[in-house]
């Protein structure tokens, strides 16, 4: 099934001329930047529903559903804003998590949290982004993206399907991993697999993209297709926990307004975020 899906995506991509982008041999840095772009920066904005299913070692599951809005900054393409509006479980519905991401390495992201039950808006202090995202096996940084500038990239292998990058953090004291290996698809430049290693080459965490879908949209008046990760799975090998992230209703370039991503809207989210 997976293979059929891939073939389908490739077919469409070839049709749109996308696959041609991979012809010349790029540098490690270029691959890393391109992968970052493909995973987090396609289109001017995006909207979709995300479902997280966390399955623990014993097979017990927990579910979270939220709508996610994303908008790129007009001035600098690398700054972004995220707005996550929680739907499920019912007792945390309307909880909002908002991020203003700053791509510059020296500038910390701004993060906000709205908790309707406690009726509180809190700013989250700059600091560690490598904590669990709502109790799942994805980290905050997996959701908003780890800037390629944080790591030194090394192309360790190129195969027909993948560019295999070894990424070593510039500030090893800030992260729990020693390095991670990313398998970047040579055609779409989407990261298909990331293996995180601790000291002693011990792999403890894997994120895999298990399903890609082509999402049709318009870019400057022309129809384009964005290959999009529809299902990805994060596995924590130490705790035995797994989280499956499924994106649905993905839309790009919907024309989200900047005002949505402000503190004012945390308590009264725009209908854009809800339906």
């Amino acid at each position, binding site marked *: 099934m997976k293979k059929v899906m891939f073939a389908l995506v490739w077919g469409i991509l070839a049709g749109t001329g996308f696959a041609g982008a991979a012809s010349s041999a790029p540098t490690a840095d270029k691959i890393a930047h391109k992968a970052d772009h493909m995973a987090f920066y396609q289109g001017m904005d995006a909207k979709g529903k995300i479902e997280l299913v966390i399955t*623990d*070692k*014993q097979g*017990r*599951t*927990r579910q979270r559903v939220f709508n996610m809005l994303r908008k790129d900054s007009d001035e600098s393409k690398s700054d972004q804003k995220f707005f996550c509006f929680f739907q*499920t*479980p*019912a*007792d*945390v*519905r309307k*909880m909002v998590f908002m991020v203003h991401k700053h791509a510059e390495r020296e500038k910390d992201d701004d993060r906000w*949290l709205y*908790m*309707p*039950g*406690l009726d*509180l*808006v*809190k*700013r*989250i*202090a700059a*600091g*560690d982004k*490598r*904590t*669990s*995202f*709502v*109790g*799942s*096996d994805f980290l*905050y940084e997996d959701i908003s993206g780890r800037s390629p500038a944080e790591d030194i990239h090394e192309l360790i292998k190129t195969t027909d399907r993948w560019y295999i990058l070894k990424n070593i953090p510039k500030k090893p*004291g800030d992260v*729990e991993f020693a390095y991670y290996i990313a398998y970047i698809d040579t055609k779409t430049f989407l990261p298909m697999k990331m293996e995180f290693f601790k000291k*002693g080459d011990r792999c403890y965490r894997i994120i895999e993209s298990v399903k890609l879908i082509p999402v049709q949209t318009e870019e400057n008046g022309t129809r384009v297709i964005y290959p999009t990760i529809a299902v990805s799975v994060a596995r*924590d090998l*130490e*705790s035995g*926990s797994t989280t499956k992230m499924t994106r649905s209703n993905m839309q790009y370039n919907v024309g989200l307004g900047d005002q949505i991503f402000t503190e004012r809207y945390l308590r009264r989210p725009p*209908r854009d975020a*809800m*339906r």
Partner: protein
Amino acid sequence: MKLFKNAVVGFAVMHYKPVMLLTILFTLGTGAFLPLVTLDTDPENMLERDEPVRVFHNETKQRFNLSDIVVLGVINNRDPDGVFNPTTLKRIYTLTEFAKTLRWQDAKHPGRSVGVIEVDMIAPSMVDHMSQHDPGTIQFEWLMNRPPETRQEARAVRDRALSNPLLTGRMVSEDGKAVCMYLPLTDKLLSYRVYTALRKKIAELGGDEEYHITGLPVAEGAVGVEMFTQMGTASPLAMVVIFGLLLLFFRKWIVIALPMIIAAVSIISSMGLMIACGFPVHILSSMLPIFLMSIAMVDSVHVLSEFFDAYTQEKGRTQTIKEVMDTLFAPMLYTSLTTAAGFLSLTLAPIPPARIFGIFLSTGVMIAWGVTVMLVPAYIMLIPEKKLEHFGLSAQEQEKQTWLTRTLAAMGALTYKHAKAVLGLLAIVVAVSVWGITQIRVNDNYAKRFSHSHPIRKADVALNSHFGGTYTAYLILEGKNHTKATYRDVLKIKRDLTRFSREIRKEHPGAPSLAAKLGETLSYNAFKNNTFEGFLDSTMHAIEKTAADAPDKDYYALQELKNFFGLEKEKRKLFKRPEVVEYMADVQDHLEKRGLIGKSNSVADVVCKVNQELTDGRPENFRIPDTLQAVAECYLQYQQSHRPNDLWHLVTPDYMQANIQMHFPTGDSMNTKAVVEAVDVYFNNNAPPAAMNHRWAGLHYINLALEDRLVRGFLKSFAGSFMIVFIMMSFLFRSPLWGGLCMVPLSITLLMIYGIVGIIGKDYDLPIAVLSALSIGMAVDFAIHFLERSRTAYRATGSWKETVPQMFGGPARAISRNVLVIAIGFLPLLVASLVPYKTTGIMLFMILFCSGLITLVALPAALTIAETWFFKKSRKQKKEQGHSFR
């Protein structure tokens, strides 16, 4: 009986060469299994595998993902800032990093590894810190990302840690002098390995700090490992001591080699058989050699003693041994049978290793008996007559000249002349002992298995004075929900739905009418679904379907209504409800305030702490918020950490079961018992706000449950043993009266010993419980020998007065020698550093010595007083020249 005896002894004397060969072959054959030995050092195996307490404990461990934990404590009393100075924190960090590496290949599952579970470790560098950064800003960070470089930074780490009630008294002591690291293990049996690795690493660190390693798995593991090694030193030592004693008594090494051979044969073959039957050697069975060592020799010492006394060169060995065996065959058989029966009574205890121990111990005793009656004659036949020159009492010295014979003669005279005084004195002893027994305190403590100088005992004392406790038991609350939605449930939901739809009317004007329409379908929906959850799910599903095509105004209203049902579903998850969480906090508070526990942790603490930090960090907000949603938000925020799975040690993901972790500063089981009772009382007096069960789990609780089973089990086997021996004695003497008399010395002894235990305030713990049952079969032997020989002698003399001097000659000598040999044979256990071995050594020495002494004092005194009563039949028979026995 006579026929059987003559056949056996005759065969042994005639065919001594094949007998010898057969014995050697039997020993080698069974001994061949010894290398296949497997050890079982897990005290949990004292409980049956399907024992409900054990089953629940294991279920709990799985449900809450709990592991057995090694506690590594660091104390710095010299530095003004305690452990919170850069150097100590650096060492703590180094140790933490080292502990992470304690992983090994899993022998059972290649490719997998076992050892310390890094993600669940608790150490300053591995836990999170949640705090107020600026007003309105909350910060999530590592408590100590890396070891601090300045004293100021180190103190900041302390202050951060102390601000978290989940860590205070657990990871960091309130005075800041100590830090504890908790290292969870994939299997508690690895604890000793982790323990030794840590000790080695600590030795490399140096510095002023004190390091302590403790935790129940460590204590249990160490007991297991050290028991076996100490058994290895104590057994040979016992052998040497016994050999020395025998040499003192009999002077001829070639003769005393015999008991040693018999002991070796019975130990090797019974251990070999046990291993061949596929049983692992448990801690209890590790004592098998030292028990068999002395018991196996008893019979042969009797034979030797008698042979030594009776041998003259004129008579020759063949004649002497036949005579000796004639006298001793029956008492030996019966003493062996009673000893074996006494041990066999251990099978009455519901404790698997005790059963195995009992079965093979009694097997060993019977093997020893068989070997004694077969091999002793054969062996003596093999000794050239020449080598026996100067052997025997007659050859060595005159009877009256030895200290033993003199003392015994005096004792005999005393019991006859002052019989009433002797019995009166014993009566007083009994009375005091009975009072002493009422003072007995049942209590066990794993740490107290180690002597005061043992590092584990020291660690226990040091760490528990700084922390809330290193002993942990889990109070598990299990919520109960009725499964199907009833008519009343539906009515209530309908009512609440209507109210809710009116509340949101301002924002969603269509809500009341949509709710009314929805309300009509509820009864049918509830009827259709077998579960409450199914009913709610299908209702939500139906709403979602309607909403999909609805216009915007209805869509948003329907979403609210759908969420109403979603919330109903969440409300059924008991441990999300504020009043339930509050109840848990109350239980903890109650126990902590009464000083029953050192510290406790539950989701109540988590919710309070998160609520405090989310709100504004002020102490008054360390409380449980009022709504389900707010509690849920606290739970969710708690998961947004570096350790998202920590929550699941305290509550199950369905929020239907919660775990209150109770930490005890002492390993005393009576303390645990008091808490268990206090919790029951609390639940009875304060009904929980929702239906729930409460049950206990955790190694520390298992030990309490184990103790309960063991104390009762051994009491049962004690009673069983007593009855069996009494019945056997009544049968042997053809008289319950004599049977009863036979039980007297041992009863007085046990009353006395356990009375002393009560009076000196020694806790009645596991080792002491085991010994009561074990000692009966052994302690009764002296009385059997004494009474049996008395009856025989009385038949010859016809008067007790004339019998006494005879009895205090050869028979008393044989008994005394035996008493000394086996009682002193247990004393080498005192060199062991483990307290249970010391206890076993001293207790058995006392029991055997006292029962020997009391036999020689109480029985003749009783017979003096009640001569007519006891010897009625014998007197008559004396006239008829009949034999009652043999």
